[in-house]
Protein backbone atom coordinates (compact mmCIF):
# COMPACT_ATOMS: atom_id res chain seq x y z
CA UNK A 1 0.00 0.00 0.00
CA UNK A 2 2.72 2.43 1.00
CA UNK A 3 4.70 1.43 -2.05
CA UNK A 4 1.76 2.09 -4.33
CA UNK A 5 1.36 5.53 -2.82
CA UNK A 6 5.02 6.33 -3.40
CA UNK A 7 4.75 5.12 -6.97
CA UNK A 8 1.66 7.23 -7.54
CA UNK A 9 3.45 10.24 -6.13
CA UNK A 10 6.43 9.70 -8.40
CA UNK A 11 4.39 9.55 -11.58
CA UNK A 12 2.13 12.48 -10.69
CA UNK A 13 2.57 15.77 -12.48
CA UNK A 14 3.58 18.01 -9.62
CA UNK A 15 6.26 20.59 -9.25
CA UNK A 16 8.24 19.87 -6.11
CA UNK A 17 11.85 20.15 -5.14
CA UNK A 18 12.95 17.31 -7.39
CA UNK A 19 11.27 18.85 -10.41
CA UNK A 20 12.75 22.24 -9.74
CA UNK A 21 16.17 20.65 -9.48
CA UNK A 22 15.69 19.14 -12.94
CA UNK A 23 15.07 22.59 -14.32
CA UNK A 24 17.71 24.56 -12.45
CA UNK A 25 20.61 22.12 -12.24
CA UNK A 26 21.48 22.42 -15.95
CA UNK A 27 21.52 26.19 -15.57
CA UNK A 28 24.32 26.13 -13.04
CA UNK A 29 26.05 23.14 -11.47
CA UNK A 30 25.37 20.78 -14.36
CA UNK A 31 25.43 23.23 -17.25
CA UNK A 32 25.79 21.39 -20.58
CA UNK A 33 28.23 23.93 -22.00
CA UNK A 34 30.37 25.11 -19.12
CA UNK A 35 30.42 21.94 -17.01
CA UNK A 36 29.89 19.10 -19.47
CA UNK A 37 31.47 21.09 -22.32
CA UNK A 38 28.98 19.85 -24.92
CA UNK A 39 27.50 21.66 -27.90
CA UNK A 40 30.59 23.83 -28.39
CA UNK A 41 30.50 23.67 -32.20
CA UNK A 42 27.29 25.64 -32.56
CA UNK A 43 28.26 27.89 -29.66
CA UNK A 44 31.18 29.02 -31.81
CA UNK A 45 29.24 29.49 -34.98
CA UNK A 46 26.00 31.23 -34.09
CA UNK A 47 27.15 33.65 -31.41
CA UNK A 48 28.21 36.56 -33.61
CA UNK A 49 24.90 38.26 -32.82
CA UNK A 50 22.33 38.19 -30.03
CA UNK A 51 19.45 37.66 -32.45
CA UNK A 52 20.95 34.55 -34.01
CA UNK A 53 21.89 33.21 -30.58
CA UNK A 54 18.35 33.75 -29.31
CA UNK A 55 16.75 32.02 -32.29
CA UNK A 56 19.22 29.15 -31.94
CA UNK A 57 18.54 28.90 -28.20
CA UNK A 58 14.78 28.74 -28.75
CA UNK A 59 15.26 26.11 -31.46
CA UNK A 60 17.42 23.96 -29.16
CA UNK A 61 15.00 24.29 -26.22
CA UNK A 62 12.19 23.15 -28.53
CA UNK A 63 14.22 20.17 -29.76
CA UNK A 64 15.53 19.05 -26.34
CA UNK A 65 12.10 19.40 -24.75
CA UNK A 66 10.12 17.46 -27.34
CA UNK A 67 12.78 14.87 -28.12
CA UNK A 68 13.07 14.11 -24.40
CA UNK A 69 9.29 13.87 -24.05
CA UNK A 70 8.75 11.67 -27.09
CA UNK A 71 11.68 9.38 -26.36
CA UNK A 72 10.56 9.03 -22.78
CA UNK A 73 7.00 8.20 -23.81
CA UNK A 74 8.30 5.54 -26.20
CA UNK A 75 11.12 4.29 -23.95
CA UNK A 76 9.48 0.99 -23.08
CA UNK A 77 8.54 0.12 -26.65
CA UNK A 78 11.74 1.18 -28.41
CA UNK A 79 13.66 -1.99 -29.33
CA UNK A 80 17.05 -1.83 -27.60
CA UNK A 81 18.87 -2.91 -30.75
CA UNK A 82 17.83 0.17 -32.72
CA UNK A 83 17.35 2.70 -29.95
CA UNK A 84 20.05 5.12 -31.15
CA UNK A 85 18.60 5.17 -34.65
CA UNK A 86 15.11 5.74 -33.29
CA UNK A 87 16.39 8.60 -31.14
CA UNK A 88 18.09 10.06 -34.16
CA UNK A 89 14.85 9.88 -36.17
CA UNK A 90 13.02 11.74 -33.40
CA UNK A 91 15.70 14.44 -33.22
CA UNK A 92 15.98 14.78 -36.98
CA UNK A 93 12.20 15.13 -37.32
CA UNK A 94 12.03 17.85 -34.71
CA UNK A 95 14.97 19.70 -36.24
CA UNK A 96 13.33 19.55 -39.67
CA UNK A 97 10.13 20.93 -38.14
CA UNK A 98 12.15 23.78 -36.62
CA UNK A 99 13.85 24.43 -39.94
CA UNK A 100 10.61 24.49 -41.94
CA UNK A 101 8.96 26.75 -39.36
CA UNK A 102 11.87 29.19 -39.26
CA UNK A 103 11.95 29.36 -43.03
CA UNK A 104 8.29 30.39 -42.95
CA UNK A 105 8.23 32.83 -40.02
CA UNK A 106 11.79 34.13 -39.56
CA UNK A 107 13.40 33.96 -42.97
CA UNK A 108 16.29 36.31 -42.23
CA UNK A 109 17.36 34.28 -39.21
CA UNK A 110 16.93 31.11 -41.25
CA UNK A 111 19.29 32.50 -43.89
CA UNK A 112 21.87 33.60 -41.35
CA UNK A 113 21.84 30.42 -39.29
CA UNK A 114 21.83 28.36 -42.50
CA UNK A 115 23.39 24.96 -41.82
CA UNK A 116 23.61 25.39 -38.07
CA UNK A 117 19.90 24.74 -37.59
CA UNK A 118 20.36 21.40 -39.32
CA UNK A 119 23.41 20.72 -37.18
CA UNK A 120 21.28 20.71 -34.01
CA UNK A 121 20.82 17.05 -34.97
CA UNK A 122 24.46 16.44 -34.12
CA UNK A 123 24.42 18.59 -31.00
CA UNK A 124 25.69 16.25 -28.29
CA UNK A 125 23.44 17.83 -25.67
CA UNK A 126 20.28 16.56 -27.36
CA UNK A 127 21.27 12.93 -27.78
CA UNK A 128 23.16 12.98 -24.49
CA UNK A 129 19.99 13.83 -22.60
CA UNK A 130 17.99 11.18 -24.45
CA UNK A 131 20.47 8.47 -23.51
CA UNK A 132 21.21 9.71 -20.02
CA UNK A 133 17.79 10.81 -18.87
CA UNK A 134 14.80 10.25 -21.13
CA UNK A 135 15.41 6.51 -21.56
CA UNK A 136 15.11 6.07 -17.80
CA UNK A 137 12.50 8.60 -16.67
CA UNK A 138 8.89 9.53 -17.30
CA UNK A 139 7.75 12.02 -19.96
CA UNK A 140 6.98 14.86 -17.55
CA UNK A 141 10.33 14.75 -15.81
CA UNK A 142 12.08 14.28 -19.14
CA UNK A 143 10.35 17.35 -20.46
CA UNK A 144 11.60 19.42 -17.50
CA UNK A 145 15.09 18.01 -17.98
CA UNK A 146 14.93 18.89 -21.68
CA UNK A 147 13.83 22.46 -20.99
CA UNK A 148 16.51 22.83 -18.31
CA UNK A 149 19.30 21.65 -20.58
CA UNK A 150 18.07 23.65 -23.55
CA UNK A 151 17.86 26.82 -21.47
CA UNK A 152 21.23 26.10 -19.84
CA UNK A 153 22.75 25.91 -23.31
CA UNK A 154 20.83 28.98 -24.48
CA UNK A 155 21.96 31.14 -21.57
CA UNK A 156 25.63 30.47 -22.32
CA UNK A 157 24.97 31.13 -26.01
CA UNK A 158 23.41 34.49 -25.19
CA UNK A 159 26.23 35.40 -22.81
CA UNK A 160 28.86 34.66 -25.46
CA UNK A 161 26.83 36.49 -28.10
CA UNK A 162 26.44 39.50 -25.81
CA UNK A 163 30.20 39.91 -25.46
CA UNK A 164 30.94 39.16 -29.11
CA UNK A 165 28.30 41.42 -30.63
CA UNK A 166 28.88 44.29 -28.21
CA UNK A 167 32.66 44.40 -28.57
CA UNK A 168 32.84 43.11 -32.13
CA UNK A 169 30.21 45.27 -33.76
CA UNK A 170 29.25 47.73 -31.01
CA UNK A 171 25.68 46.50 -31.32
CA UNK A 172 23.11 44.45 -29.44
CA UNK A 173 20.27 42.81 -31.39
CA UNK A 174 21.50 44.87 -34.35
CA UNK A 175 20.98 48.21 -32.54
CA UNK A 176 24.02 50.40 -32.09
CA UNK A 177 25.18 50.69 -28.47
CA UNK A 178 28.84 51.73 -28.43
CA UNK A 179 31.69 52.39 -30.81
CA UNK A 180 32.78 54.59 -33.68
CA UNK A 181 30.92 55.46 -36.86
CA UNK A 182 31.25 53.19 -39.91
CA UNK A 183 33.86 55.65 -41.20
CA UNK A 184 35.99 55.02 -38.07
CA UNK A 185 35.29 58.47 -36.63
CA UNK A 186 34.39 59.40 -33.08
CA UNK A 187 30.68 58.78 -32.66
CA UNK A 188 29.25 61.43 -30.38
CA UNK A 189 25.64 60.32 -30.73
CA UNK A 190 25.95 57.30 -28.45
CA UNK A 191 24.75 57.92 -24.95
CA UNK A 192 27.20 55.70 -23.11
CA UNK A 193 30.26 57.87 -23.56
CA UNK A 194 31.94 55.06 -25.47
CA UNK A 195 31.81 56.57 -28.94
CA UNK A 196 35.60 56.34 -29.08
CA UNK A 197 35.59 52.55 -28.91
CA UNK A 198 37.01 50.93 -32.05
CA UNK A 199 35.22 47.68 -32.83
CA UNK A 200 37.42 44.67 -32.21
CA UNK A 201 37.16 42.53 -35.30
CA UNK A 202 38.64 39.56 -33.45
CA UNK A 203 35.35 39.31 -31.56
CA UNK A 204 33.51 38.64 -34.83
CA UNK A 205 35.87 35.77 -35.70
CA UNK A 206 35.33 32.23 -34.42
CA UNK A 207 38.35 32.03 -32.07
CA UNK A 208 36.88 34.73 -29.86
CA UNK A 209 33.97 32.44 -29.00
CA UNK A 210 36.53 30.00 -27.58
CA UNK A 211 38.13 32.75 -25.50
CA UNK A 212 34.78 33.93 -24.20
CA UNK A 213 33.54 30.43 -23.40
CA UNK A 214 36.85 29.71 -21.70
CA UNK A 215 36.49 32.85 -19.61
CA UNK A 216 32.91 31.92 -18.69
CA UNK A 217 33.99 28.41 -17.66
CA UNK A 218 36.79 29.87 -15.55
CA UNK A 219 34.46 32.40 -13.90
CA UNK A 220 31.85 29.72 -13.27
CA UNK A 221 34.36 27.45 -11.53
CA UNK A 222 35.92 30.28 -9.59
CA UNK A 223 32.46 31.16 -8.32
CA UNK A 224 31.55 27.55 -7.56
CA UNK A 225 34.77 25.70 -6.60
CA UNK A 226 32.96 22.34 -6.25
CA UNK A 227 32.91 22.17 -10.07
CA UNK A 228 36.68 22.17 -10.38
CA UNK A 229 37.97 18.85 -11.77
CA UNK A 230 40.29 17.11 -9.36
CA UNK A 231 43.14 15.43 -11.15
Amino acid at each position, binding site marked *: MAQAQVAAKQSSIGFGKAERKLLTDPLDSNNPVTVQVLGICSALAVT*TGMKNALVMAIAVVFVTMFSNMITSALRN*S*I*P*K*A*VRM*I*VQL*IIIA*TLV*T*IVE*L*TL*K*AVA*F*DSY*KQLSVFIGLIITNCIVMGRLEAFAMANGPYKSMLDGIGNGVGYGIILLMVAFVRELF*GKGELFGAKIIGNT*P*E*YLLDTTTTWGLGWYANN*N*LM*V*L*FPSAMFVIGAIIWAHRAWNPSLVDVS
Partner: protein
Amino acid sequence: MHSTNQIIRFVLIMTSLVALVLSLMYTGLKGTHELNEAIYAKKAILAAVQNKLGIDASSLPVEEVQEIFDSSIKQEVYDMKGNLLTPAQVEASGYKGGLAENVDINKEAKKPESERILPMYKFKDGDNEFTILSVQGKGLWDVIWGNIALEKDMKTIAGVDFDHKGETPGLGAEIKDNKAWKKQFVGKSIYDAAGNFTGVAVIKGGAKEPTWQVDGISGATITADGVGEMLKRGLNYYGPVLDKMKKS
Protein backbone atom coordinates in the same frame (compact mmCIF):
# COMPACT_ATOMS: atom_id res chain seq x y z
CA MET B 1 13.39 -8.61 -25.83
CA HIS B 2 12.08 -7.65 -29.24
CA SER B 3 12.09 -10.05 -32.13
CA THR B 4 13.43 -9.01 -35.52
CA ASN B 5 9.87 -8.73 -36.82
CA GLN B 6 8.89 -6.45 -33.99
CA ILE B 7 11.90 -4.25 -34.62
CA ILE B 8 11.11 -3.99 -38.31
CA ARG B 9 7.48 -3.21 -37.57
CA PHE B 10 8.42 -0.54 -35.04
CA VAL B 11 10.87 1.16 -37.40
CA LEU B 12 8.42 1.01 -40.32
CA ILE B 13 5.58 2.58 -38.33
CA MET B 14 7.91 5.19 -36.90
CA THR B 15 9.42 6.25 -40.23
CA SER B 16 6.09 6.38 -42.06
CA LEU B 17 4.62 8.51 -39.28
CA VAL B 18 7.56 10.86 -39.45
CA ALA B 19 7.45 11.00 -43.24
CA LEU B 20 3.73 11.80 -43.13
CA VAL B 21 4.14 14.62 -40.61
CA LEU B 22 7.10 16.18 -42.44
CA SER B 23 5.61 15.96 -45.92
CA LEU B 24 2.34 17.50 -44.71
CA MET B 25 4.26 20.31 -43.10
CA TYR B 26 6.47 20.81 -46.14
CA THR B 27 3.58 21.06 -48.59
CA GLY B 28 1.61 23.24 -46.17
CA LEU B 29 4.41 25.78 -45.83
CA LYS B 30 5.71 25.64 -49.39
CA GLY B 31 3.80 28.75 -50.50
CA THR B 32 5.15 30.81 -47.61
CA HIS B 33 8.68 29.56 -48.25
CA GLU B 34 8.54 30.56 -51.90
CA LEU B 35 7.14 33.97 -51.05
CA ASN B 36 9.91 34.50 -48.49
CA GLU B 37 12.59 33.50 -50.99
CA ALA B 38 11.16 35.90 -53.57
CA ILE B 39 10.93 38.81 -51.13
CA TYR B 40 14.47 38.12 -49.91
CA ALA B 41 15.79 38.33 -53.48
CA LYS B 42 13.78 41.49 -54.15
CA LYS B 43 15.12 43.13 -51.00
CA ALA B 44 18.66 42.35 -52.20
CA ILE B 45 17.89 44.15 -55.46
CA LEU B 46 16.47 47.16 -53.62
CA ALA B 47 19.49 47.14 -51.31
CA ALA B 48 21.62 48.29 -54.26
CA VAL B 49 19.67 51.55 -54.44
CA GLN B 50 18.60 51.92 -50.80
CA ASN B 51 21.05 54.71 -49.99
CA LYS B 52 19.91 56.75 -52.97
CA LEU B 53 16.27 56.31 -51.99
CA GLY B 54 16.85 56.73 -48.27
CA ILE B 55 15.26 53.41 -47.31
CA ASP B 56 16.47 50.36 -45.42
CA ALA B 57 15.68 47.49 -47.75
CA SER B 58 16.18 44.72 -45.19
CA SER B 59 13.52 46.09 -42.85
CA LEU B 60 10.88 46.94 -45.45
CA PRO B 61 7.56 45.16 -44.96
CA VAL B 62 6.54 42.64 -47.61
CA GLU B 63 3.73 44.78 -49.06
CA GLU B 64 6.05 47.74 -49.55
CA VAL B 65 8.63 45.64 -51.39
CA GLN B 66 5.92 44.36 -53.72
CA GLU B 67 4.57 47.89 -54.14
CA ILE B 68 7.98 49.28 -55.20
CA PHE B 69 8.46 46.40 -57.60
CA ASP B 70 5.02 46.85 -59.12
CA SER B 71 5.14 50.61 -59.48
CA SER B 72 8.77 51.60 -60.10
CA ILE B 73 10.67 48.63 -61.49
CA LYS B 74 10.62 47.35 -65.04
CA GLN B 75 12.16 43.91 -65.37
CA GLU B 76 13.97 42.89 -68.53
CA VAL B 77 16.09 39.92 -69.54
CA TYR B 78 18.80 40.03 -72.20
CA ASP B 79 20.97 37.46 -73.89
CA MET B 80 24.74 37.76 -74.14
CA LYS B 81 24.53 39.66 -77.44
CA GLY B 82 22.34 42.34 -75.91
CA ASN B 83 19.00 41.25 -77.40
CA LEU B 84 15.89 41.68 -75.27
CA LEU B 85 14.28 38.31 -74.52
CA THR B 86 10.53 37.77 -74.28
CA PRO B 87 9.08 36.11 -71.16
CA ALA B 88 8.43 33.01 -73.28
CA GLN B 89 12.12 32.80 -74.23
CA VAL B 90 13.12 33.18 -70.58
CA GLU B 91 10.70 30.42 -69.60
CA ALA B 92 12.32 28.26 -72.27
CA SER B 93 15.62 28.74 -70.42
CA GLY B 94 14.05 27.05 -67.43
CA TYR B 95 12.67 29.89 -65.30
CA LYS B 96 8.96 29.71 -64.59
CA GLY B 97 7.38 33.15 -64.65
CA GLY B 98 9.72 34.49 -67.31
CA LEU B 99 10.62 37.66 -65.41
CA ALA B 100 14.08 38.90 -64.45
CA GLU B 101 13.30 38.13 -60.81
CA ASN B 102 12.84 34.45 -61.70
CA VAL B 103 16.34 34.17 -63.17
CA ASP B 104 18.77 32.41 -60.84
CA ILE B 105 22.13 34.07 -61.35
CA ASN B 106 24.01 31.19 -59.69
CA LYS B 107 22.37 28.70 -62.03
CA GLU B 108 23.29 30.83 -65.04
CA ALA B 109 26.95 30.73 -64.05
CA LYS B 110 26.99 26.97 -64.69
CA LYS B 111 26.01 27.42 -68.35
CA PRO B 112 28.55 28.12 -71.13
CA GLU B 113 29.17 31.87 -71.30
CA SER B 114 27.49 32.41 -74.67
CA GLU B 115 24.22 30.81 -73.52
CA ARG B 116 23.73 32.81 -70.34
CA ILE B 117 20.87 35.23 -69.88
CA LEU B 118 21.13 38.50 -67.99
CA PRO B 119 18.46 39.94 -65.70
CA MET B 120 18.10 43.72 -65.58
CA TYR B 121 15.92 45.89 -63.37
CA LYS B 122 15.08 49.41 -64.52
CA PHE B 123 14.14 51.53 -61.55
CA LYS B 124 12.26 54.75 -62.28
CA ASP B 125 10.51 56.84 -59.67
CA GLY B 126 10.38 60.56 -60.42
CA ASP B 127 13.93 61.80 -60.82
CA ASN B 128 15.42 58.60 -59.46
CA GLU B 129 16.43 56.48 -62.38
CA PHE B 130 18.72 53.49 -61.96
CA THR B 131 19.59 50.35 -63.86
CA ILE B 132 20.29 47.39 -61.59
CA LEU B 133 22.46 44.55 -62.88
CA SER B 134 23.18 41.17 -61.31
CA VAL B 135 26.66 39.66 -61.16
CA GLN B 136 28.05 36.39 -59.85
CA GLY B 137 31.55 35.23 -59.00
CA LYS B 138 33.71 33.22 -56.62
CA GLY B 139 34.78 34.11 -53.10
CA LEU B 140 37.23 32.13 -50.99
CA TRP B 141 34.96 29.25 -49.98
CA ASP B 142 31.97 29.43 -52.26
CA VAL B 143 30.01 31.58 -54.67
CA ILE B 144 29.41 35.29 -54.17
CA TRP B 145 26.90 37.41 -56.03
CA GLY B 146 25.61 40.94 -56.03
CA ASN B 147 23.39 43.61 -57.52
CA ILE B 148 24.95 46.74 -58.98
CA ALA B 149 22.94 49.90 -59.58
CA LEU B 150 24.07 52.27 -62.34
CA GLU B 151 23.11 55.92 -62.69
CA LYS B 152 21.28 57.31 -65.73
CA ASP B 153 24.60 57.73 -67.63
CA MET B 154 25.03 53.92 -67.58
CA LYS B 155 28.59 54.12 -66.28
CA THR B 156 28.58 55.56 -62.77
CA ILE B 157 27.78 53.21 -59.90
CA ALA B 158 24.90 54.38 -57.71
CA GLY B 159 25.08 51.58 -55.18
CA VAL B 160 26.04 47.95 -54.67
CA ASP B 161 24.90 45.03 -52.59
CA PHE B 162 26.78 41.76 -52.23
CA ASP B 163 25.91 38.43 -50.75
CA HIS B 164 27.81 35.19 -50.28
CA LYS B 165 27.19 31.55 -49.55
CA GLY B 166 29.93 30.68 -47.08
CA GLU B 167 32.48 33.42 -46.45
CA THR B 168 33.94 33.78 -42.94
CA PRO B 169 32.14 36.22 -40.62
CA GLY B 170 34.39 39.17 -39.83
CA LEU B 171 36.62 38.49 -42.86
CA GLY B 172 35.14 37.59 -46.24
CA ALA B 173 31.59 38.18 -45.03
CA GLU B 174 32.47 41.85 -44.67
CA ILE B 175 31.60 42.24 -48.36
CA LYS B 176 28.00 41.88 -47.21
CA ASP B 177 28.12 43.27 -43.67
CA ASN B 178 30.47 46.25 -43.99
CA LYS B 179 28.37 49.21 -45.11
CA ALA B 180 31.34 51.59 -45.22
CA TRP B 181 33.17 49.26 -47.59
CA LYS B 182 30.19 49.00 -49.92
CA LYS B 183 29.82 52.79 -49.86
CA GLN B 184 33.25 53.10 -51.55
CA PHE B 185 31.75 51.84 -54.80
CA VAL B 186 29.29 54.71 -55.06
CA GLY B 187 30.38 57.21 -57.71
CA LYS B 188 33.00 54.93 -59.29
CA SER B 189 32.93 54.67 -63.05
CA ILE B 190 33.06 51.33 -64.83
CA TYR B 191 34.72 52.98 -67.85
CA ASP B 192 37.99 54.90 -67.92
CA ALA B 193 38.35 58.41 -69.36
CA ALA B 194 38.88 57.04 -72.87
CA GLY B 195 35.64 55.08 -72.67
CA ASN B 196 37.24 51.63 -72.31
CA PHE B 197 35.50 49.19 -69.98
CA THR B 198 37.41 48.73 -66.71
CA GLY B 199 34.92 47.41 -64.18
CA VAL B 200 35.76 48.33 -60.59
CA ALA B 201 39.02 46.91 -59.29
CA VAL B 202 39.41 46.02 -55.61
CA ILE B 203 42.99 46.79 -54.69
CA LYS B 204 44.84 45.23 -51.77
CA GLY B 205 46.73 47.94 -49.95
CA GLY B 206 44.55 50.82 -51.11
CA ALA B 207 43.09 52.25 -54.31
CA LYS B 208 45.41 54.24 -56.57
CA GLU B 209 42.98 55.27 -59.31
CA PRO B 210 40.10 56.95 -57.48
CA THR B 211 37.76 56.80 -60.46
CA TRP B 212 37.57 53.02 -60.83
CA GLN B 213 39.39 51.41 -57.88
CA VAL B 214 38.37 50.75 -54.28
CA ASP B 215 40.28 49.54 -51.19
CA GLY B 216 40.40 45.85 -50.39
CA ILE B 217 39.51 44.27 -47.05
CA SER B 218 42.37 43.30 -44.75
CA GLY B 219 42.29 39.60 -43.96
CA ALA B 220 39.97 38.90 -46.89
CA THR B 221 42.18 39.37 -49.93
CA ILE B 222 40.81 36.44 -51.90
CA THR B 223 37.16 37.35 -51.32
CA ALA B 224 37.82 41.01 -52.13
CA ASP B 225 39.73 40.04 -55.28
CA GLY B 226 36.76 37.82 -56.12
CA VAL B 227 34.48 40.84 -55.91
CA GLY B 228 36.73 42.77 -58.31
CA GLU B 229 36.87 39.86 -60.72
CA MET B 230 33.11 39.39 -60.46
CA LEU B 231 32.46 43.06 -61.27
CA LYS B 232 34.86 43.10 -64.18
CA ARG B 233 33.52 39.93 -65.78
CA GLY B 234 29.88 40.28 -64.71
CA LEU B 235 29.45 43.88 -65.79
CA ASN B 236 31.27 43.18 -69.04
CA TYR B 237 28.54 40.64 -69.90
CA TYR B 238 26.14 43.56 -69.92
CA GLY B 239 28.46 45.52 -72.26
CA PRO B 240 26.43 44.94 -75.46
CA VAL B 241 23.17 45.90 -73.69
CA LEU B 242 24.66 49.01 -72.13
CA ASP B 243 26.14 50.08 -75.48
CA LYS B 244 22.71 49.78 -77.10
CA MET B 245 21.03 51.68 -74.29
CA LYS B 246 23.58 54.48 -74.51
CA LYS B 247 23.02 54.86 -78.25
CA SER B 248 19.25 55.08 -78.04
